[in-house]
Each structure stands twice: as structure tokens, then as C-alpha cells.
């Protein structure tokens, strides 16, 4: 009873503060639609003095009624009046409209959710564990508000125009020849945007899978001497802002690029803009996605039990035959997974097509141009976003199906004797031939990134060293008034650090908490819960960006242009990463330790803090680093959400690229990467790796998903 009282009290006191005045005062002052919610809250408070109220139906009915009232009053009355005329006659004051919810609204919503979780826990949800039950309810509510609500809103924006329902317009937009024409195959001009997107996706996925396979073969199955270098190089793209590669490619191969000029001088090849369009985007994407496919395939290769290959050779198969008949079939599910992963990434990629696209339009950039600038057309953007989302979900669904049914896991609990068979010589040579250009290219790109910022104009081959760009971006002065920052980049840099710094721990908390719920708790609807969280990962960033614009520009949740929307966006975009790291680590930990803690009187939260978290520290570290780095380098969703006050580094760099200020962009990128590395080290120190050495098996488990 005491606990229940405490759960109710702070909530009741703060209930309904609508920017200063409480709901009660507003309600009495004419906004009568707020009164039912207040009455329900009072009724609940009264009820809570009764014995055993948590198990009775009355409390449940009141809580549900309260939540319905809250949601209804929030949505029914918009900024400039009610959505139905009838409401206006009922509540005259509603005609004046209301603004977004203030803190009071959020707190009451939270309180209702808290009470709901308390009540269902008392009915045996989550084995009666109040903390777990509360977490589930709150995460579901957050997902609903920040993942599903925006998508639904976006979907409705595709159908509903300013004059009401517009199905015809939707069909017209959906079937526009601009999207579907196939002219490029007939050599009569450009293809539609959807066709472009799919062609690019398939090609990028194909090439990066091939490259990834070659890398994985060399690392896992040969005694190739540069293995360590390969691994190191493959990590680089993770900390590289996605468009930097695109910029570097322009600097190398653009019309005034280094190689183009060399070609013109030596071979007298006329400089062209060939790199803009499909070839350029493809190059950048293959470079960026190959590490991803490499890690997937490396995992698959290492999971193949070597005794299978040994069995094949003892049965008389030559190496090539063994490779073809045993290794290759076992690799196929991994290949499919890698391909689909790269395909999904290509669909979602925004930075490279924007920088290198030229006239080659893909869905993600098309969505962007439909929303930004003078051609603001949310309906069209929404339609395009729906198509992109559908494509992604199909790929995602295929991936789930294939991974679900076709992965031949040959790792068993028993130790595998035997050594992995080296790959046949021919394949090794082919693999080396394939990766040499990749390595050379990568080195070239990163040389540009490192050096480009410190020469006068890398774009026009003026290589005289200078600190001009760094000074433009980051000049500062320590004078009598303290530190003064003059550089043009400081604002965005500081915002980026703030946003990433706030988002990373929040992302980690929600990710690890979700992992714990999924791995350790039993509750009705767990499968749907898990699927919902994974889904939020599958939605391309561009779609998320547009959907946030569609959903959060208007009351009741009016947060566009604030820093909060950036943080929230990152939280839900990156949450699945923390979740996977957490799940992998949890699967290595005997769950009876948590049960032991419970039988000794520790609730869910105490168990999590005292037992689980200390044991999965490496996973926490992984999640923190990853969410931080991703937040710093993300472009796709962010570019829709930045405002003049809260600009992000990536959006700023993007702007410089569009203005052709490559040197400045590159200089800033290099600084960004250095800052990222420093921050990662800092996080490492803060989280502390002291305890990690003791339990090697946990460490290994947690590092894997980060890669």
C-alpha cells in the first residue's frame, strides 16, 4: 500500500501542468475538456486507499479511461481548433485551439503508464515483476510514440491532402512514370527513381558481398600476411561520416580531380563528369559496405566446422571439389544475409547519392528534395517514403526468413578438432586480385581525408600546405572574457557533441533494458515486442526523418526544431544495436544468477544493477561507443531535423560540400574523426575496463556484435 501511495502521489501533484497552469485550473477556466482527466486522477487517488485495489477491476477501468482521455483530448483539439465541429459546440473554448503538451501532460501520461504497469504486474504480467512490467509498458509506449506513430502519420500524409482524403492523388503519385520508367535499359534517357534505387542496391550489394567474401576468405582461410591490416582497414568506415568517401571520390575522380587531371595531362583523356551518377555512388557504397559484408561472412566462415571439410577430403575430394561441394553450400546463407544487409544499407544511404548523384536520383535523395526548400510537398515525400519503406521491409523480411530457416549452424558444444582447410590456390589468387584495388582505393581515400584539410585547395590540385581551413572552422581566442570561439564550425560541433553525448547513454539504457526484457522476462506479446524493436532498425533514416517532420511539427507532441527531437531520433534509430550487444552478452550469462538475486529479495531493478550490469559491462561499452559514433556520423534522418539553432556537424559538412568547399568539408571531417576517437577512448576510461580481463568468455561475446 505504501508503495502504491508513493507511485500515485508525485504524479498527482504534478498532474496536468499545461505550461504554468494545471489541467484543473485550465479546466475550471473554460477549457472544460481537461476536466474528465483530472476527475479520473482524483478517483484513482481515492481508490488507492482501499485494500487490494490493485487487483480489482475498477482501478484498471479508470486507468484505461484516463489514458484514452489523455490521448483523445491531445489529438482531438489541434492548434487552431477542434477537428470536428461538434466538439466546438460542446467545448466553446476549444475553438481557440491548444498548443502542445507541456511537462504536466507528459508526466500524467507517464503516471498513467506507470499505474497500468503496476496493475498488470499485480495480475501476473512479467511474473509479477513490477520493474520489468513498467519497463515493458514504457518502452512499448515510447516505440508507439516515436516509431509507429510517425510512420502512421506519414502514411496518412500520403493519402490525405490539404483538401481531405486524396486517394486518386496517391495513386497518381505512386504510378508516376518518373518513378517507374525503364528508359535507361532501352538507351533512351534516364530510368525512374525506383528502378534507379533498386539497380544501385543490387549492384552495390553484389560487389560488396564479393569483396567481403574475398576479404573473409583471406583472413579466415589463408596465411596471408597482411591479415591484421585488413581487419584494421575494415573498421575505418564505421567511424567515417558516410559522405566523406563521396567527397574523396570527387577529389580523386571528379572533373578537376587528381586522377582526372593526371589522365588529361598524360593520356590526353578529356575530363568528364563520368563519376557523378551510378559509377560514383556505387564506388562509394561498395567501399562503405564491404566491411559489413566482410564481418558477416567472416562469422559464417569461422562457424563452419572444419571437420566437415576434413571429412570431405578423407573421402577423396580434391580441395577445389571440397570447396565447391561443402564449403560453398554452407556459406550460401551467409552470402544471402550479407547481400540483403548491403542492399538494405544501400537503400537507406543518403549521403553518397546526394554528393555523387549528379542526375542519378534515388528514393532517399528524392524524398529529401521533396521536403526541403521551395518544393515542400509532404504528400509526395510520404508516398516516396512508403515505397522505400516497402522495399526495405521486403528485403528485411527475406533476410529474417532466410536466416531463420537456412542457416546451417555447424558449431556445437563440442570442441572442434581439426584445422580449417585452406582455400584452393586459384580462389586465393582471385581474392587477392579483387582486394588489391580496394585496399589501394581505401588508402587513397583516407590520405585525402587526412591531408585534404591542410592544403590550399585539394579540389583543384593546389597542394601548398595551409591551416586556413582549420582556422576558418575552428579558430578561437582566449582573452580577457575567457574562451571565445570564432570558427564557423564550432556551433555545429558543440551541438553534435551534446546531442551524441546525451543520446549515447540514453540509447544504451533503452537498448540494454530491452535486451534484458527480451532475453530474461516472459510476458504476453513478447514476440511482437521483439519484432517491433527490430522494425525500428529496418526503417531507412530518410523515412524516419520525413516521418518525424510529419508527426512532430504539430501538437500534441510539438518538438520539431529542438535538440530533443535529435536525441530522440538517435535513441530509437540506434537502440537495436545496444539491444543486440546486450542480448549476445546475456546469452553467455547463467540466468540462475538473476534468479538467485530475486530469491534473496532483490527486485528487477536491484538485480539489474547489482548482478546483470556488472557482468555485461563490455556490452554496455560496445553499445555506448556505437551509439555515440553513429550519432556523430549520421546524416540521413538528421538532415530533416536540424534547425538553425541546432545544427549538426554532418549537416554542416553537407552544406559545405554542396557549396563546393571540399577542403573545409574534409578538414572538418578529419577533425570529427579525431574527436570521435578521443571520445571513444574517454568512454572507455569512464566505463572502465578494469573488470573485463577476469572473465574472458564474456568479453569475447560482447565484442562480436559491435563489429
Amino acid at each position, binding site marked *: 500500500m505504501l508503495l502504491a501511495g508513493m507511485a500515485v502521489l508525485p504524479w498527482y501533484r504534478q498532474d496536468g501542468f499545461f505550461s504554468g497552469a494545471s489541467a484543473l485550473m485550465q479546466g475550471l477556466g473554460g477549457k472544460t475538456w481537461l476536466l474528465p482527466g483530472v476527475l479520473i486522477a482524483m478517483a484513482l487517488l481515492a481508490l488507492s486507499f482501499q485494500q487490494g485495489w490493485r487487483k480489482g477491476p475498477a482501478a484498471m477501468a479508470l486507468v484505461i479511461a484516463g489514458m484514452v482521455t489523455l490521448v483523445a483530448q491531445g489529438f482531438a483539439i489541434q492548434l487552431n481548433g477542434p477537428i470536428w465541429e461538434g466538439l466546438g459546440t460542446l467545448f466553446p473554448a476549444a475553438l481557440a485551439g491548444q498548443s502542445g503538451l507541456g511537462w504536466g501532460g507528459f508526466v500524467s501520461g507517464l503516471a498513467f503508464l506507470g499505474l497500468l504497469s503496476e496493475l498488470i504486474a499485480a495480475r501476473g504480467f512479467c*511474473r*509479477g515483476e513490477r520493474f520489468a512490467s513498467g519497463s515493458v509498458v514504457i518502452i512499448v509506449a515510447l516505440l508507439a510514440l516515436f516509431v509507429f506513430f510517425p510512420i502512421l502519420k506519414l502514411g496518412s500524409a500520403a493519402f490525405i491532402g490539404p483538401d481531405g482524403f486524396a486517394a486518386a492523388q496517391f495513386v497518381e503519385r505512386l504510378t508516376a512514370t518518373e518513378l517507374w520508367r525503364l528508359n535507361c535499359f532501352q538507351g533512351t534517357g534516364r530510368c525512374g527513381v525506383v528502378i534507379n534505387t533498386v539497380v544501385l542496391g543490387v549492384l552495390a550489394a553484389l560487389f560488396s558481398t564479393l569483396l567481403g567474401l574475398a576479404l573473409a576468405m583471406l583472413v579466415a582461410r589463408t596465411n596471408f600476411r597482411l591479415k591484421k591490416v585488413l581487419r584494421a582497414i575494415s573498421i575505418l568506415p564505421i567511424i567515417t561520416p558516410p559522405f566523406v568517401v563521396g567527397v574523396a571520390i570527387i577529389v580523386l575522380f571528379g572533373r578537376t580531380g587528381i586522377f582526372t587531371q593526371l589522365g588529361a595531362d598524360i593520356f590526353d583523356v578529356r575530363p568528364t563528369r563520368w563519376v557523378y551518377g551510378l559509377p560514383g555512388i556505387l564506388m562509394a557504397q561498395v567501399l562503405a559496405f564491404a566491411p559489413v559484408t566482410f564481418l558477416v561472412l567472416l562469422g559464417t566462415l569461422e562457424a563452419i566446422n572444419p571437420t566437415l571439410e576434413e571429412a570431405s577430403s578423407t573421402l577423396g575430394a580434391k580441395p577445389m571439389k571440397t570447396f565447391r561441394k561443402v564449403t560453398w553450400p554452407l556459406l550460401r546463407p551467409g552470402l544471402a544475409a550479407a547481400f540483403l544487409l548491403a542492399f538494405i544499407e544501400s537503400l537507406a544511404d543518403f549521403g553518397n547519392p546526394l554528393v555523387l548523384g549528379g542526375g542519378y536520383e534515388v528514393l532517399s535523395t528524392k524524398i529529401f528534395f521533396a521536403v526541403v526548400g521551395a518544393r515542400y510537398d509532404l504528400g509526395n515525400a510520404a508516398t516516396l517514403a512508403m515505397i522505400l519503406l516497402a522495399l526495405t521491409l521486403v528485403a528485411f523480411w527475406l533476410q529474417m526468413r532466410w536466416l531463420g530457416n537456412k542457416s546451417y549452424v555447424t558449431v556445437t558444444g563440442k570442441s572442434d578438432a581439426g584445422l580449417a582447410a585452406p582455400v584452393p590456390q586459384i580462389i586465393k589468387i582471385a581474392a587477392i586480385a579483387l582486394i588489391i584495388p580496394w585496399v589501394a582505393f581505401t588508402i587513397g581515400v583516407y590520405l585525402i581525408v587526412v591531408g585534404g584539410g591542410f592544403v590550399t585547395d585539394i579540389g583543384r590540385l593546389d597542394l601548398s600546405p595551409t591551416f586556413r581551413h582549420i582556422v576558418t572552422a575552428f579558430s578561437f581566442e582566449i582573452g580577457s572574457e575567457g574562451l571565445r570561439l570564432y570558427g564557423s564550425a564550432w556551433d555545429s560541433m558543440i551541438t553534435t557533441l551534446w546531442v551524441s553525448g546525451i543520446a549515447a547513454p540514453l540509447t544504451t539504457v533503452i537498448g540494454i533494458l530491452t535486451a534484458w526484457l527480451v532475453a530474461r522476462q516472459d510476458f504476453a506479446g513478447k514476440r511482437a515486442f521483439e519484432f517491433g524493436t527490430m522494425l525500428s532498425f529496418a526503417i531507412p533514416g530518410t523515412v524516419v526523418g520525413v516521418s518525424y517532420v510529419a508527426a512532430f511539427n504539430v501538437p500534441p507532441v510539438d518538438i520539431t526544431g529542438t535538440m530533443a527531437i535529435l536525441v530522440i531520433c538517435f535513441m530509437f534509430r540506434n537502440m537495436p544495436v545496444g539491444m543486440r550487444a546486450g542480448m549476445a552478452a546475456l546469452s553467455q550469462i*547463467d540466468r540462475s544468477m538473476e*534468479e*538467485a538475486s530475486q*530469491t534473496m529479495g532483490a527486485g528487477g531493478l536491484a538485480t539489474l544493477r547489482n548482478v546483470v550490469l556488472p*557482468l555485461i559491462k563490455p556490452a554496455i561499452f560496445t553499445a555506448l561507443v556505437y551509439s555515440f559514433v553513429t550519432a556523430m556520423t549520421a546524416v540521413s534522418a538528421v538532415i530533416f531535423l536540424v534547425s538553425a539553432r541546432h545544427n549538426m556537424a554532418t549537416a554542416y559538412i553537407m552544406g559545405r560540400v554542396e557549396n563546393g568547399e571540399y577542403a573545409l568539408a574534409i578538414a572538418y571531417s578529419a577533425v570529427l574523426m579525431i574527436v570521435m576517437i578521443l571520445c571513444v577512448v574517454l568512454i572507455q576510461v569512464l566505463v572502465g575496463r578494469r*573488470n573485463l580481463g577476469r572473465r574472458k568468455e564474456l568479453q569475447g561475446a560482447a565484442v562480436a556484435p559491435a563489429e
Partner: protein
Amino acid sequence: MSDTAIEFVNVVKRYGSALAVDGISFSIAKGELVTFLGPSGCGKTTSLRLIAGLELPSEGQVLIGGRDVSRDPASDRNVGMVFQSYALFPHMNVLDNVSYGPVIRGGDKAAAQAKAREILEQVGLSGLQDRLPSELSGGQQQRVAVARAIVQQPEVLLFDEPLSNVDAKLRRKVRAEIRDLQRRFGLTAVYVTHDQEEALAVSDRIIVMQAGKIAQIGTPQDLYDRPATPFVADFIGDANLIAGTVQNGTFHAGDLGLALAGPDGAATVSIRPERIGLRRDGSAKVISATYLGSRTEYVVQTGAGEMLVSRPIWEDAIDAGAAVTIEIRPTDLTRVK
């Protein structure tokens, strides 16, 4: 105050459509050590977890100390549990492990540690309080787990197959220690095992479970001497199950005719192998004779079917192939069906 420590009333536990526990009812008295015994998947561990609060029943009630705790999570019940894997926290030393419960329950840290030290002394581990679990032997880890479970004077002490990670040689000693501790502290204990010998050795009473239901409840001697079903007879010790008919107070199976009370009709009886005597010459035949050190086991072909016979080694050995007569005292028969 009632004398009942734990009571189950028609408890059902479902996982999706699978029934793990299928409507069981029983009660356990204070100070008693009761064992759940059964093959894997019979619902014994689930029943233990239902007592602990690690699972909540789908239907029915669980009462601890007369209070309905059916909807209370583990952290709201006062139970101690020793896990199969011991589940010691690897990042805490022995003292922190044992004082974890008292500290979590809001106790003063110094008082909690004093209490933990006291218990550690009782289980003979006083010198090891600063070690990490990974620096202890298996037997020591087990004792830490027990100390941790009893430090809060739980209403019920639960053991989930506590000996399965103990050396076969050590088991006898450890189980005697557990029994001793339970008696010394006057604790109500529930023990889960699939090892019938272990169950016979430690329990006041045994609850034999089969497919989510209770097959029989009784003292070790009850269960061994008077099994209620063929399953119980076969699961606890070895049993010859002989199918036949009862007519006018006599059980007939093949050429066997033994006095047996009860209603007429088809019947199955159980007879323990060591309760069958062997005499040379006769219509039965020894199929195999196996020397096992402490006894010799014979498989004998009789008119009522094959029977397992166990004889002490001081009796004359009989070779396979020999003709024999079997001797059964009617009082050693138990009708199980």
C-alpha cells in the same frame, strides 16, 4: 499458527499450450524436508520455481506460511534457493555473495556482513570470505550457495538438484551435510532431484511426479515398499512388474499363484528383485548372471515372464543356463494396478 509451511491448491502451469504442471495439490509441514522426484520434464523443477516465485501459476494457489503468494514475485517472498549451477555472483567475493540478501532487504551493511560471517562459520568457510567464487573448489562453492540461501532465515529453503555438480564420491557427504544443516536450523526444505537414491537418503517425504502430475506422496519407505503405480515402482529402485489376474484372493500369472487381497480382475503386481529367492532345480531358467561386487544379478526366465533377481554374494553363485525355482513371499507383493 498452522503447521503448514507450503500448500499447493490445484496448481496449473502452462507454457503456451504445453502443460508443465497439471493441477497438483499437496502441503508441506514446517521443518519437513520434502523431495520432488521424477524423470526430466515431469514438472518437478517447475513446481520448485513456483514455490520460489520464479514462475507464477497459470491457475490455482500457492500458499507459503498460510499466505496466498500466487501473484507475488520471488523478491516479495521469503525463500532461499540453492541452484544447480550455484549461481554465485562471479564479480563479488564470498562475503559479498552471502551478505547480498540482507543488504538488498535494506539491512545495515555492517550488520549484514556480521550475519554473513556467522553463517559462513557455521558451514565451515570462515577463512575464505575474501575469495572470489572462481577461486573456490566445487564443494566450497556449493557451501557458499547454501550459506547464501539460509542467511536470511527463509521460510522455505529450496534445492534445485544441488548435487549434480558435485563429484560422485563426495555426494554422500554433501547430502548428509545438507540434511544436517536443515535439521539444525529447523528449516522447511524442498529438494528437487531425478536421482532416486539421493531422494531416499535425504527426504522426510517424497513427492513422485510424472508428466506434470503427482504419482505418489509418501515416506521413502512407503514409496519403496508400497508403490502405488507401476511408474513409481519402476522409477524408485528396480521392480519386476508382473501382469496377471486376481481370483478369489489369489494372484495368477503363468504358473505363479500367490495370495493377494483385493478385488478380482486383471492386476499388475510389483516385486523387488532382492525379495525373490532362488533355489537350484526347477522349471525356471537363468538367462544371465552378472557379478556386481556387492550382489549378483540374475535374469531368470519364469512361467510368468522374465524377472530380475538380485542376490547377496554370500549365497552360492548360479551359472547362466542353470535350472532354478523362484521363491516369492506373498507379503512382498504390491498390487500397483
